[in-house]
């Protein structure tokens, strides 16, 4: 089979939609267009039935009850609804939230918002491998703590946090546990009951479903959790999220969940084998380092720093053929490299030298072979051009140089 270019290795940013998902969605645009809230005619019934079925498909993937699924516009909205919703609903119990520094901006910025509203937020640091320290977590709990918000799998480095241990601590202290599981759901087994999760956000477009749809899982018993709605209106989704249901997208999310349910296990094996092969080959280069814990990690993610070459310059060597992302942010106005990599304690230089690989359902072995070759060639070429590489090879300590910061 001929290889298709460009090769897409940025599946942590978004995944292509599975054609089977599109097929499931298509009837719900023109033909079955009803409003799921229309109770008095067949158009409405048809739409409601489709939404109910999707709700079951979604619930099944995470071992939840369908009634515990609140459809949203995506994970960002679900993150906002969970954190702001709990903060408002449980205001009488306390105002303290614990999260960590490597969370997605949708969580971090929501927490900043909470702080402006008078809430207290503790941002736990992570270890060099990206994992939080459970003792620090427990020590951060106060009698005002109402929520722990720790992501399931990290979008940049793929590190998977110990959710079950975290939930044990949360349960022990009677605190709710919310997790942004956008990168984990559909990739690794996530079970809200076994994992002890009270609220969980995830999204369609990270698991081969459509963009613009996601869900918030809200536990209904042991304990019964409620969130204050952040959107007022018709009282949809058990009053927690008003707004006419986006039926085609919800059908797509349901189908995407069903496919993940059926294929996740074999896919994880296939992807981690390809990822490990990619990683092993690239680590044959001198001064190449994996960022984040390699054991507790999503199967499809690798983040590697190639010291003495800059990430964006590196990508330019192959971005006609390969799409991936870098921890460098040379294009942004701030010029700040990835805050996640910096949270691991990486110097800015290593953060600038990183590439993130996000493999996916449609990644092939041939594509990985091509990628390995292209990256190795480019790293070697750019090192020949790098003054830092030359200095390193001459044994000059780069930290001893007084750089002109600008």
């Amino acid at each position, binding site marked *: 089979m001929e290889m298709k270019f460009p090769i897409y290795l940025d599946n942590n940013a978004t995944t292509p939609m599975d054609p089977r998902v599109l097929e499931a969605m298509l009837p719900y645009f023109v033909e079955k267009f009803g409003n799921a809230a229309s109770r008095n005619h067949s158009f409405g019934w048809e739409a409601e039935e489709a939404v109910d079925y999707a709700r079951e498909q979604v619930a099944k993937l995470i071992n939840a009850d369908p009634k515990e699924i609140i459809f949203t516009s995506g994970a960002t909205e679900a993150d906002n609804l969970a954190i702001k919703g709990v903060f408002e609903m449980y205001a009488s119990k306390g105002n303290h939230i614990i999260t960590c520094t490597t969370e997605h901006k949708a969580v971090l910025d929501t927490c900043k918002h909470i702080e402006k509203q008078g809430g207290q937020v503790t941002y736990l640091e992570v270890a060099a491998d990206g994992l939080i320290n459970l003792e620090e977590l427990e020590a951060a709990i106060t009698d005002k703590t109402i929520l722990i918000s720790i992501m399931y799998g990290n979008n940049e480095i793929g590190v998977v946090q110990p959710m079950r241990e975290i939930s044990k601590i949360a349960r022990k202290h009677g605190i709710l546990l919310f997790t942004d599981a956008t990168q984990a759901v559909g990739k690794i087994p996530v079970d809200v009951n076994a994992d002890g999760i009270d609220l969980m956000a995830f999204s369609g477009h990270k698991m081969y479903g459509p963009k613009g749809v996601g869900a918030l899982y809200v536990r209904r018993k042991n304990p019964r959790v409620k969130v204050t709605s952040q959107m007022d209106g018709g009282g949809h989704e058990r009053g927690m999220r008003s707004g006419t249901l986006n039926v085609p997208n919800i059908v797509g999310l349901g189908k995407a969940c069903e496919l993940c349910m059926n294929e996740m296990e074999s896919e994880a094996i296939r992807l981690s084998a390809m990822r490990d092969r990619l990683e092993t080959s690239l680590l044959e280069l001198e001064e190449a380092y994996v960022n984040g814990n390699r054991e507790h990690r999503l199967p499809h993610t690798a983040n590697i720093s190639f010291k003495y070459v800059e990430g964006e*310059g590196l990508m330019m060597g192959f971005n006609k053929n390969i799409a991936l992302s870098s921890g460098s942010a040379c294009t942004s106005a701030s010029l700040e490299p990835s805050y996640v990599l910096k949270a691991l304690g990486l110097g800015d230089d290593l953060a600038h030298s990183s590439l993130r690989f996000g493999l996916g359902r449609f990644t092939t072995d041939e594509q990985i072979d091509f990628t390995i070759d292209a990256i190795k060639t480019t790293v070697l070429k750019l090192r020949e051009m790098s003054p830092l590489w030359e200095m390193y090879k001459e044994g000059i300590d780069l930290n001893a140089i007084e750089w002109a910061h600008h």
Partner: protein
Amino acid sequence: MAYSEKVIDHYSNPKNVGTLDKAKTNVGTGLVGAPECGDVMRLQIEVDQESGLISDAKFKTFGCGSAIASSSLATEWLKGKSIDQALTIDNMDIVEELNLPPVKIHCSVLAEDAIKAAINDYRVKNGLPEFVLEKKAH
């Protein structure tokens, strides 16, 4: 963001990558930028003492494609110029030539700084006073 043809050309076929002997008195070396900022440029000039013209220029750059292209272009422009002529190279000339977008202007500023730093190094080595560098915003 798409790169301009000229940036891609300099990146793919950089001109004058290399190292001159910095121990020589007629070689000036400028090392600017910082690894933490994601850009480091080293630009070197070799001056023909008789004619006073820059006979050779080399660079090595750690940075994005625009930084590599800016330094590659700078070395091309330097060759054959006198020191005084070299000092007139303005970062905006580089921006114009390479069609750099606003977020990449700092790459051209760095190249201009590297030229001036190399010239100053040459001047100091040869007992001449340093030029006072006008600091541009990066």
